[in-house]
């Protein structure tokens, strides 16, 4: 069984997003922390590694589309136990929207060949769209299984998973190959190991470009349907504060409740 885990490198969780008056965006960490593996992807990597440990997956390949620097996130995946990593990078990919990225990922997954499961995190902490997994499934023509909170069974070309849906949990079975995006309830990701880091540093991470994947159009900023023409900082929220004075706590609580009813908060 071959598993691909699609990951992304994102700013650190403590990085601060700022937009200046001319719409120029910067996203730097005040403490100088480097970019990281998207935290949501830690769960899909963990699940991929568990498929190797518990379900006999032969390959768990971390795959990303991004600049050369994304190799650092791939190294983290190797240090967590992925068997291989692959970087897909090309100047023509720059500015792709999620459909463009899905097109590239699908081409890369087809290029790897014989993949049974493509795992994704729920979303990436930078764009936060959560669109790429289903779009990739669509491009591949595979069944998307979204918001998966447990992989129950794999066998006879089928997979059974538990999905976390709005009003509860749902168990579904689908034929392989499938695209899965996982929620954080699925596992507790391990930390990368020091031995793993050393191995990752020695690993050869292949780079593929548009020509290698025969991608011709439909990607990059020209094909993007997303319009970034006006970027501005969110205006600070206006608010006011009122302190309710009364002789007793009970009276304060009553006044507060009245107020909340009045404002239709409750």
């Amino acid at each position, binding site marked *: 069984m071959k598993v691909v885990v699609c990951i992304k490198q994102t700013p650190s969780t403590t990085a601060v997003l700022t937009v200046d008056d001319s719409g120029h965006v910067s996203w730097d960490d005040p403490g100088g922390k480097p970019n990281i593996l998207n935290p949501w992807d830690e769960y899909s990597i963990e699940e991929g590694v568990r498929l190797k440990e518990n379900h006999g997956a032969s390959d768990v390949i971390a795959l990303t589309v991004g600049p050369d620097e994304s190799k650092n996130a791939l*190294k983290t995946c190797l*240090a967590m136990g992925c068997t291989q990593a692959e970087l897909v990078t090309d100047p023509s990919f720059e500015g792709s929207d999620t459909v463009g990225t899905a097109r590239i990922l699908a081409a890369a997954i087809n290029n790897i060949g014989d993949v049974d499961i493509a795992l994704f995190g729920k979303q990436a902490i930078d764009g936060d769209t959560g669109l790429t997994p289903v779009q990739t499934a669509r491009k591949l023509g595979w069944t998307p299984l979204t918001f998966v909170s447990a992989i129950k069974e794999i066998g006879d070309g089928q997979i059974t998973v538990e999905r976390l849906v709005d009003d509860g949990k749902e168990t579904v079975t689908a034929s392989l190959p499938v695209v899965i995006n996982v929620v954080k309830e699925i596992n507790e990701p*391990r*930390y*990368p190991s*020091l*031995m793993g*880091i050393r191995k990752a540093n020695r690993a050869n991470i292949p780079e593929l470009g548009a020509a290698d994947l025969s991608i011709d159009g439909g990607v990059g900023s020209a094909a993007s349907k997303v319009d970034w023409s006006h970027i501005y900082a969110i205006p600070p929220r206006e608010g006011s504060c009122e302190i309710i004075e009364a002789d007793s706590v009970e009276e304060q609580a009553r006044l507060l409740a009245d107020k909340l009813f009045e404002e239709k908060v409750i």
Partner: protein
Amino acid sequence: MDFQLTEEQREFKHIVHDFVFKELRPMARHTDETGEFNWTAVKKMGPMGLLGLEVPEKYGGAELDAISVAIAVEELGWGCASTALAVAAHNGLALGPIVNFGSEALKEQWLPDLATGRGKLGCLSLTEPGAGSDLQGGVRTTAVVEGDSWIIDGAKMWMTNASISDVMVVLCRTDQAGGSHSLSHILVPSDTPGITIGAPEKKMGLKGSPTHAVTFDEVRVPLENVVGEVGRGLQQTLATLDSGRVGIGALALGIGQAAYEEAIKYAEERQTFGKTIAHHQAIQWMLADAATELQAARLMVYWAAWLRGWGRPYTQEAAMAKLFATEVSERVCRNAIQIHGGYGYSSEFEVERMYRDTRLMTIGEGTSEIQRLVIARHILNL
């Protein structure tokens, strides 16, 4: 000359820092208040390699270079000194002699579980009621050969990790005649009949690192359990303490760094006389001194570790690094409390715990006085 960490060392530092930030630091106060050992975090350290820092990969360890080890211990100390001490003692004091001097059979039997967190921890047992700084003259615990076994009798003190251990490396007198070749290291499984582990000592700090008095009453282990050579126990101990001292220096550095960061944070928030206290020169000077001394201590710790990594003599440099880093740490923690004013004396603030925790560092693994004695012997060729 190159003052940069390698890329790999920087990556190790990030990973350990991130782990410590999430798993140790938030629990440090709870660990101190309850005295409960933080097994949850320590169990997660196994697969990461933090429980087998210098253990060869073939036994499941991380096989790190000496500087990476110092970095890891510093980071652990930054997050929770109690847990850091337990882990540093496990790695340096207990596994150190097994890795460096132990037989292949002992390594194969013990290292794979101890280095990966499948087992519990290890400890090194040198100190006795009548033997601390002076081990050669003071150790009374004996091991005598009877058939194919050692029979161990005696009482040890201050054994870090005893109650949370699988094995103890015990310094025993194997030659009643005395002298520098009368001691040996013997590996004793902690559940061997005849061992009594006392209640945890009540301590000023490091409350989440259990320390115990342990008695040995006709404790029988196979002759093969001698670690290294019979009669080389003192020399092996001194070699182990050399590297342990770099570790304690690094740990103290981590505590000092944490206290310094707390002091900066507080100084930038607290207002007096119409400005933050960071704007008062008296506070600035304490912070500037702390930054300078921590930097110097870090260079000394790395320097000693670097020498060790290259297999060069480093006994004097290890003693200097331990002496300086531990005393700096104490001063930095003391001043961090001073900067916090009354709040610094309250256990609601982290610096109070750090001050209590770092106090041990100038005592354990050779007091500051003993470090000066080691340094003086080297510089005076005594």
